């Protein structure tokens, strides 16, 4: 565990801040040694273990992406053959979706922050939480093992009938994803139970901080959608090995039914990725505007709206797969409801800034990037939810660009915002704002340069997942590849800034942003039990009319 060594280092430095007598040690120093980390049931330590692994997977998935972009520099073979390319885009998708995006914000920041925002000492089921980490790591090892053994070439969607007959190692990859799904369900159950049962006195449903609201909505999707993915992948895996013909037309089967099962999970899954991102933004904006959200209920209720309507939109992935025009129309209209709920949030965030006392900071810069990219990605989503337009754009780079705008421009940007926003909370130190601002700007520029050309490519007719292409598309592909390297460099810079600050950053104090959200009521980094006593939280987490001292006095009455 290099993590514990890095974090433990300041302790040995002996900077004496905790020398005030009866103050309990923070969670990083509460116990020491590798064993104390590997067997911990402290949600904060488990969050950090997830953090390390999730970041490694982010790097791995990113390297696959760079390899793809390098290959696409020229219309023919550049560095790899077509089969390797097919495996590479599959591995990129599988890694980024199930090993990075799905656990990224919930398992790291949700795990760390959710109990604190509820004034709880820990999650409802701490040992289940630790188990979910090990299940996640096992799923990851199985999948990575399958990748090393040759990987598979079906794309992350594993569509039948090709996945039945693909000569590649499909079974370990789908088995690994199945196991990852079990970890997701464990996490979801824990978050739902905690939100219902472990709220501190005074926290009504209308006082739950908005990040926790979105993690709660996400958890509902995790618990109810993931088992269907597990089933669909189990069926594909069984079919691949035993050839039971579950979806095989030669014995009366229907391959489109696989698509229904797959998207019943995988469409809600994009809300597993974006809802927590919206939650991060909903914390960052009020904090940096020093103002309550212009409508708390609009954000909270639209979160539930997205979580529920998200279950009814999967058919929009299948407009050209032979579903009826009526079905497609219904699915298209329901999909647009998601845009309505998202727009409610976007307008609320912007309205919150209005007349706020805005303080610029790296998390807020990421919000500005998020706002532009997410709205752009969301609007193109409405466009592809329209049947007539989708027939033109289906299976082209337009769709690739659309979902990367939402998943990378939305989720990854918010992940980085969270990494900066809660960095002082988690580690008690501050990062360099100058490098933070530089990297946030570079992330935005690199992102736009990577993915905006892909909208143009898709509209011109470049199909997704193709290895070669006509020469007139080359300049756009070259732009996109250049952008990908800028984006990768910017992300490395952002994470490097945080890594350096772990050891050399100045002390942050307990609440450097002056936030009123409940997690900031404790020390930073917090002690093992989060709060010095059970807090009484009978006020809004966004009440900027009372001072920090007043909030503290109300939460911990003498």
């Amino acid at each position, binding site marked *: 565990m290099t993590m514990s060594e890095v974090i433990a280092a300041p302790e040995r430095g002996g900077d004496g801040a905790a020398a005030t007598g009866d103050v309990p040690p923070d969670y990083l120093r509460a116990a020491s040694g590798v064993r104390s980390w590997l067997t911990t049931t402290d949600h904060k330590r488990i969050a950090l273990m997830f953090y390390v692994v999730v970041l490694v997977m982010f790097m791995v998935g990113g390297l696959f992406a760079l390899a793809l972009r390098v290959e696409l520099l020229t219309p023919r073979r550049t560095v790899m053959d077509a089969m390797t390319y097919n495996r590479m885009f599959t591995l990129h998708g599988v890694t980024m979706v199930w090993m990075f995006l799905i656990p990224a914000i919930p398992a790291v920041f949700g795990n760390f922050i959710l109990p604190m925002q509820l004034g709880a000492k820990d999650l409802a*089921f701490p040992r289940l939480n630790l188990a979910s980490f090990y299940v996640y790591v096992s799923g990851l090892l199985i999948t990575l093992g399958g990748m090393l053994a040759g990987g598979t070439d079906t794309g992350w969607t594993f569509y039948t009938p090709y996945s039945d007959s693909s000569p590649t190692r499909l079974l370990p990859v789908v088995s690994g994803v199945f196991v990852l799904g079990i970890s997701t369900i464990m996490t979801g159950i824990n978050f739902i139970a905690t939100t219902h049962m472990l709220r501190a006195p005074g926290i009504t449903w209308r006082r739950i901080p908005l990040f926790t609201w979105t993690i709660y909505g996400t958890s509902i999707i995790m618990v109810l959608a993931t*088992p*269907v993915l597990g089933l669909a992948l189990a069926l594909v895996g069984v079919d691949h090995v035993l050839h039971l*013909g*579950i979806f095989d037309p030669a014995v009366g089967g229907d391959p489109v039914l696989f698509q229904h099962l797959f998207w019943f999970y995988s469409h809600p899954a994009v809300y597993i990725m974006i809802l927590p991102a919206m939650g991060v933004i909903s914390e960052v904006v009020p904090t940096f505007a020093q103002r309550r959200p212009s409508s708390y209920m609009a954000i909270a209720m639209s979160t539930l709206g997205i979580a529920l309507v998200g279950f009814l939109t999967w058919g929009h992935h299948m407009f050209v797969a032979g579903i009826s025009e009526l079905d497609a129309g219904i699915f298209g209209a329901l999909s647009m409801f998601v845009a309505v709920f998202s727009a409610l949030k976007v307008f609320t965030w912007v309205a919150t800034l209005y007349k706020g006392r805005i303080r610029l900071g790296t998390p807020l810069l990421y919000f500005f990037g998020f706002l532009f990219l997410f709205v752009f990605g969301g609007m193109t989503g409405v466009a592809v939810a329209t049947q007539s337009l989708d027939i033109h754009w289906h299976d082209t780079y337009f769709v690739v660009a659309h979902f990367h705008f939402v998943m990378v421009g939305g989720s990854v940007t918010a992940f980085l915002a969270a990494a900066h926003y809660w960095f002082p909370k988690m580690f008690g130190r501050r990062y360099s704002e100058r490098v933070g601002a530089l990297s946030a700007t570079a992330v935005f520029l690199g992102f736009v340069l990577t993915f905006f050309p892909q909208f143009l490519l898709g509209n011109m007719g470049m199909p997704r997942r193709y290895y070669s292409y006509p020469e007139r598309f080359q300049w756009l592909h070259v732009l996109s590849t250049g952008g990908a390297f800028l984006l990768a460099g910017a992300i490395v810079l952002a994470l490097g800034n945080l890594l350096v600050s772990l050891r050399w950053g100045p002390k942050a104090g307990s609440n450097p942003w002056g936030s009123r959200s409940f997690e900031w009521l404790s020390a930073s980094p917090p002690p093992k039990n989060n709060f010095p006593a059970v807090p009484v939280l009978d006020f809004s987490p966004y009440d900027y009319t009372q001072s920090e001292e007043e909030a503290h006095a109300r939460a911990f009455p003498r």
Partner: protein
Amino acid sequence: MPAPSHAEQYSGYPRLAETLRFGMWIFLASETLLFAGLFALYASYRAMFRADFTQAIQHNTLAYGTVNMYVLLTSSFTVALSLATLRRNRPRVTLALLLATAALGGVFLVVKALEYAEHVRNGALPGPFYHWQALPTFGANRFFTMYWLMTGLHALHVMAGVVVVLWLARRTHRRRYTAARHATFEMGTLYWHLVDVMWLFLWPILYLA
């Protein structure tokens, strides 16, 4: 029961017990969605091959399925009684009822195995392995493919349920539960009910109509 060191976040045991029950129900909801995928596949294939499905159901092994329905309903009763007797502080009766439940689970699996053997003899196997001369239709093929998947997944859950019930029996034998503290016991019985209730949905659609 979780050791006190893991339960610091609770105001007391009743709250912990309530949370465990609540968490278990959410888990059961998740399990239900796992089966729901197969029910949806079944419904889709049945809509495609209406007449063939009806015919295949009429040729299915109704006696085995019905016996198993009674077996599981009885086990549902014994496991519910085991919880009731535990609450009345009669651990020896509780233990006997748990063992009876596990035994009924075993009976179910034996009957299921005999039934599978008959399907194999008939050639009512899934997908390309299907070769039942009496019912040579695509629809019958689809029906038996779904039959094997659904009863197979259910049988796996019965096995898991037997393990859970035996674990409860072991802990009951060691007097680890009391009338006041038995949240994990209740969770185990809830899991068994998932197993038997699921058969109440499988039985009509696979054997009756």
